[in-house]
């Protein structure tokens, strides 16, 4: 098993220090994630779409058909479910892989040794999780059409709905970065249960926030959930006849949450990545 010497030993000759190409390194990381997702597309879609599909089907279709829910509820529900799908998909796609990578497999080490600033490894995670969130939420439009028979959207609503979904996925991804770097592997199950369920049910996904006047304390709780502003923004554009939080308030809140979570998440990431 002696290694050969000879011309092929040229493979071992080191190169001179290079000026690192940060852009290429970033694209390399993104390329890896896209490549892996592309191969597991079916699994990815099943993983992220089953929950919203059932939510939409049972609450939007079944309960409506049975007469337990007034007609028109599905129009309130669908924008919320679209927002929630993007937000939560992005969140899970930063939080879970980071916990696993940092605690068990250490697979992230090769990426941390790539020639780019450590923070950009985290930013890549956010960008990629956002892409996944956007794909998942976009899939909800045709699925909504299929399940409910109609999707309330006009061309004029498309720009702000798109902005809302991009921002919503970004906020979810950044929150995932916070969870993924602050929470230890042994606690991730508990944290997911404790964080995700309240996020889902206080995110104004299944109801318009403005109509919670009679349930003041719950309205305040919902106002603390970033998902509320994503849902309200998307709903406000898609179903303008239902009263929603003004778009500019939603946009401002999303940007605020994004800045906050990104700052905290990047700090947590650097702490995990560099001793």
């Amino acid at each position, binding site marked *: 098993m002696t290694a050969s010497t000879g011309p092929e030993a040229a493979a071992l000759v080191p190169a*001179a220090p290079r000026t690192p190409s940060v852009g290429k390194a970033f694209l390399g990381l993104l390329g890896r994630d896209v490549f892996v997702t592309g191969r597991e597309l079916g699994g990815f879609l099943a993983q992220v779409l089953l929950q919203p599909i059932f939510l939409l089907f049972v609450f939007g279709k079944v309960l409506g058909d049975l007469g337990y829910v007034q007609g028109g509820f599905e129009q309130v529900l669908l924008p919320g479910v679209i927002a929630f799908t993007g937000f939560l998909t992005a969140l899970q796609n930063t939080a879970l892989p980071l916990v696993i990578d940092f605690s068990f*497999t250490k697979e992230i*080490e*090769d990426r941390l*040794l790539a*020639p*780019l*600033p450590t923070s950009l490894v985290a930013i890549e995670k956010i960008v990629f999780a956002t892409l996944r969130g956007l794909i998942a939420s976009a899939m909800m439009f045709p699925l909504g059409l299929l399940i409910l028979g109609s999707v309330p959207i006009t061309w004029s609503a498309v720009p702000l709905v798109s902005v809302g979904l991009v921002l919503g996925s970004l906020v979810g991804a950044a929150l995932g970065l916070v969870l993924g770097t602050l929470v230890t592997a042994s606690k991730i199950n508990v944290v997911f249960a404790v964080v995700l369920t309240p996020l889902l049910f206080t995110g104004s996904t299944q109801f318009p926030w403005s109509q919670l006047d009679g349930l003041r304390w719950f309205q305040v709780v919902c106002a603390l959930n970033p998902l509320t502003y994503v849902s309200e923004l998307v709903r406000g554009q898609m179903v303008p006849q239902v009263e929603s939080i003004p778009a500019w308030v939603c946009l401002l809140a999303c940007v605020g949450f994004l800045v906050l979570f990104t700052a905290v998440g990047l700090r947590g990431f650097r702490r995990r990545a560099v001793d």
Partner: protein
Amino acid sequence: MEVRDLVKRYPKRPTNAVDGVSFAVEQGEIFGLLGPNGAGKTTTIGILTTRVALTSGYAGVGGVDVAADPVRARTVISVVPQRPNLDRSLNARQNLLFHAAYHGMGRAERGRRADELLERMGLGDRGKDKVDDYSGGMAQRLLIARALMHRPQVLFLDEPSTGLDPQARLFVWDQVRELRAAGTTVVVTTHDMDEAAEISDRVGIMDHGTLLALDTPDALTRTLPGDSTVDLVLGEVDAAREPALRDALGGLGGVRRVEDVGGDAGRPPGERDLRVRLYLDVPGASVLGAAAEAVERHGARLLSVALGEPTLEDVFISLTGRDLR
């Protein structure tokens, strides 16, 4: 590669993990960093590989200041970790391709180089395998191949032989020597004395965060008294008579020094097994008769005898007064 007055203190720890270490490694040299677990080896390497922030001092690789410009430093270093951290979502060849992509290598060159290195590491026909299906030795070879993809100037190998069978270990050592021949600097951390002596051009011995000695393996063992050793395992040693026994052994003709190499603390007080090593100026066999007689005269029993030459392990014992393990 150079470190000067390197200090690392982790938060909330009373002592420095690395406490004022300085050394330099020439290009194309194999440098062994030797010491027990917790000696500061891994932290030192962590600083040089940009994964640990230094507290004070200087660390440079390939002329790049690691603390000031970690991104550039990462273009010249490469790490083979102790535990495989291969990307399990990718097959073996893809692990190499994406590593090269992170380092900005063009598509055609990536593919060519991946095939070349897989071939060299004896994995030519296993490139499409999942890395989960790889044995420990194969994973190690793939890690080395991955580390070489971007043509690093300095390769860091962390405990390269841990968990490898002898054949795989020889293969890794061969590759390391070829890297040196091609001009790559190789830094090996290990707590395996034989490994350090076998492949290193120079060895630094670390303990408690400081560098105790640094030289070629030969020069280090030459600092020890004598040129052969005899290990004695003694039973039924009476604690009261132990000092006299040591004196008697130390007074034998040709014996330069007597060192403990780990006794048996589990025995009842007053009686215990004793392991001592005699450092000799004369061939070991020539003192055996006299040594056995001295042992018997002091009421102990000779349980086993081993002849040897001073090794790096003896250097460590002589520097720290204790066994490496």
